[in-house]
């Protein structure tokens, strides 16, 4: 029994690792692709952000004395113009050449603003006209920056009370907690998706592919037990799927700081024990995923058909994985951890947000192993079924 299981696994590994193209496309490429793509996207974002820091070219009409400080303000390049020039500047803004923004103050802005009392007057408040072009990023940015600044000025003029104005540290959550929250929302989904796609490629190839090419029948005429074949395939494919998943995960982890734009020192935040539990969860999940895809691939006649048949399962996994992004953290009740896939996502959410119990991880690992065992039994039955194995 053991030696045949080993022989099957050795063959599966040989099939995979001796094929440089397969190793490249399944293990190296996903991680590399994700790293390059995310880094590229991250650089793009930060470049856009730095573009925003350039000075906005703003034209003003009747700029009040009290607001002349704007002229020295960082980010604003203020040019005072006369009322007769407004039409030319508007054209510039429309075409995206020259000025980004035109701000027109009422002539007696300061007096009108000072005299205005919201409780007593029936007159409308003094109005500032700001002309902008939302199809130009520069102009729209300038508009947002200017309205925000003017809002602040308005607040300062009629100050009744302040919020968080002292030097105290109001944010009680540490940066660690914030990082953990971001991780808990994003990473479970990414891990599940990468694991699934990694497992899908190799499993459908190894089972539906062997069926399609008629090579699995050659194995079935040997004294090899169906159970040995099922378990051998499951274990070796899980190992390869895990490697593929790891590659994608590593690519994500290394490029995520660039993408999100802040530096996360991962090694400090999660302890070795956290990682160990994560590994336990991921390992047991991989076996379940490979088992489920194996069963579907065995039903399929061709690799192509297997690819189509796996889609509903993939969508289901995706849906379950997105759940943590809607917030709420991990579930507390242990019995929820008996549901495969859902339990893995919940465990990972708990692990990344540093709020988990050993019981939930133990229940998850147990449930996943039992589920994988059942899938192996089903697969064994299917390998023995002539209707499934020879349904050309």
């Amino acid at each position, binding site marked *: 029994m053991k*030696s*045949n299981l080993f*022989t099957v696994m050795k*063959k599966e590994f*040989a*099939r995979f690792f*001796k*094929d440089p193209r397969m190793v490249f496309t399944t293990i190296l490429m996903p991680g590399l692709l994700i790293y390059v793509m995310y880094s590229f996207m991250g650089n793009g974002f930060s470049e856009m952000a730095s573009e925003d820091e350039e000075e906005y070219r703003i034209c003003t009409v009747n700029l009040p004395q009290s607001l002349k400080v704007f002229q020295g303000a960082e980010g604003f390049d203020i040019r005072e113009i006369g009322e007769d020039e407004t039409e030319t500047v508007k054209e510039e803004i429309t075409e995206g050449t020259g000025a980004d923004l035109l701000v027109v103050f009422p002539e007696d802005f300061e007096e009108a603003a000072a005299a205005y009392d919201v409780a007593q007057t029936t007159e409308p408040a003094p109005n500032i006209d700001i002309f902008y072009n939302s199809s130009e990023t520069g102009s729209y940015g300038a508009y947002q920056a200017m309205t925000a600044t003017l809002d602040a000025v308005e607040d300062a003029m009629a100050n009744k009370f302040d919020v968080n104005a002292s030097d105290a540290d109001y944010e009680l959550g540490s940066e660690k907690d914030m990082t953990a929250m971001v991780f808990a929302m994003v990473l479970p989904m990414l891990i599940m998706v990468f694991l699934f796609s990694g497992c899908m490629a190799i499993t459908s190839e190894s089972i539906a592919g*062997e069926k399609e*090419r*008629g*090579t699995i*029948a*050659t*194995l*079935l*005429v*040997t*004294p*090899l*037990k169906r159970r040995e074949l099922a378990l051998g395939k499951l274990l070796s494919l899980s190992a390869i799927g895990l490697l593929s998943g790891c590659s994608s995960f590593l690519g994500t982890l290394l490029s995520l700081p660039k993408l999100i734009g802040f530096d996360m020192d991962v090694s400090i935040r999660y302890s070795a024990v956290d990682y160990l539990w994560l590994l336990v969860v991921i390992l047991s999940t991989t076996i379940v995923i490979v088992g489920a895809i194996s069963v579907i691939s065995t039903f399929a006649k061709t690799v192509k058909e297997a690819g189509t048949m796996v889609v509903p399962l993939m969508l289901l996994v995706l849906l379950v994985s997105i759940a943590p992004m809607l917030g709420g953290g991990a579930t507390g009740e242990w019995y929820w951890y008996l549901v495969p896939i859902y339990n893995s996502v919940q465990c990972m959410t708990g692990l990344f947000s540093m709020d988990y119990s050993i019981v939930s991880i133990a229940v998850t690992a147990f449930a996943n192993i039992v589920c994988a065992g059942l899938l192996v039994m089903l697969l064994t039955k299917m390998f023995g079924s*002539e209707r499934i194995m*020879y349904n050309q």
Partner: protein
Amino acid sequence: MEQETILKVENLSKTFRLSRKQQRLQKVKERQKKAVSNLSFSAYKGEIFGLLGPNGAGKTTTLRMLATLIRPDSGDAQVDGASIMKQPELVRSKIGFLTSELKLENFFTPNYLFDFFSSLYGVEAEVREERKRRMFSRFGIDEFAEVKVANLSTGMKQKTSLVISLVHDPDIIIFDEPTNGLDVITARTVTDFLKELKQEGKTILLSTHIFDLVEKLCDRVGIIMDGQMIVCDSLAALTEEESLEDKFFRIYQGELAGKGGQISEK
């Protein structure tokens, strides 16, 4: 002299469910097709037994049942004392089964596959190496031992399949249409090899629709039509009065006319 029965087939039956499309194509109303019905015969140790019949007669189904790839609905067969129903794994360890439907993985080399299948059959490393050397040189595979199956010629692939189906040196060899799709040279290599195997004392069960092959190789012949054994006798007895081909067509036409042929067994 009483010959030792090594393969005993008893009342094997197998029905297949037809899809609606198949029903339409075959113009039948029944949802089921009897591929093999109540088939019985025996093969003696050291002989070549030929199952002769037209396409769709049930030859391949019978051989697949004997190789335990599919399960009979009823009946049983003893392969060197092992029951195909109760001890399928033991049966598989005793036979070598070769058909064109069983393919080798293109990615691997004949050398790797020989070792892989040897370990599935539990062949010792020393025995394996000696056997591999002998078989590879017998079929000229040694030059291509490290070439991936994908890059071998059709003939070389077939020879490799043949060699690999015999890695465990089985006493009973089952060949489904052994020379189908082979060029004359490779076909000759295979038939010569079958004769050699017989001389070594192996029992061979083969299916074919080629009279010439049966006349050249077989000791005894079973003629199957519509899943039933019509005649089972020694080649000598069958060809006493007329050629095998004439005999076959006389039976065939008799079957068509619904009279039924004469069933005899020696």
